[in-house]
């Protein structure tokens, strides 16, 4: 089975990148591929919980819902602790089921598991 690593490096909403990357992740999972989503740099903002109806507020689909779908489909989601710290984001602010790992560990995931790596 193919392993896909989706790297998210943008915050949600300001650019389409995060939505597009998470969409690839869930589409791949639904077709039976193994998927890990790693959020690093500004991508860590996508791991936050509590988005209040982005569709109603800013006409954008909820990336929080996308991440929850990815988790339900069996995908692995990891958030970069170093990037969180730089941006003042605490673990309590994140969706509960996402993993938090230091940058070095995320780099190891990239090097160990990134058979196919797509960056967003």
């Amino acid at each position: 089975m193919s392993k896909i690593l989706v790297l998210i490096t943008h915050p949600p909403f300001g650019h389409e990148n995060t939505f597009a990357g998470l969409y690839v992740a869930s589409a791949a999972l639904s077709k039976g591929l193994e998927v890990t989503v790693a959020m690093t740099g500004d991508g860590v903002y996508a791991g936050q919980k509590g988005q209040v109806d982005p569709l109603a507020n800013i006409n954008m689909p909820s990336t929080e819902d996308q991440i929850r779908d990815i988790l339900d489909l069996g995908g692995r989601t990891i958030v970069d602790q170093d990037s969180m710290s730089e941006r003042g984001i605490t673990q309590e602010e994140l969706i509960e089921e996402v993993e938090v790992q230091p940058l070095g560990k995320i780099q190891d995931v990239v090097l160990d598991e990134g058979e196919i790596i797509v960056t967003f």
Partner: protein
Amino acid sequence: MARLTMLIMSPPHSDESAERMCGLSNRALERGMEVVVYLLGDGVLCSKKGQKGYIGQNIRTAVGKGITVRASAKDLRARAITADQVEQGVEVVEDLEGEFVEDVMEKAERVITW
């Protein structure tokens, strides 16, 4: 030895791409991997000699540690960067796209494009 191949296409300080490249390169080296970085488009600006910022320093250190850095000759010429203005140890390659393809398809175990 396993190889990590990366492609950078943005300038050194416009976004985090080059910084991520440096961090991952260092990690890969620590783990005994071979690292090759291709600079294409605005990415060739990362190879300019004399940079005092983090990326320039990292490129110098990286070359010193054995990371191979290859920059597109066509993109350098277009940007008025001559061979002697490129950081020592950076290879200036005429057919960078072709070499990148060969590397990715035949040699690299991990490929990331930023």
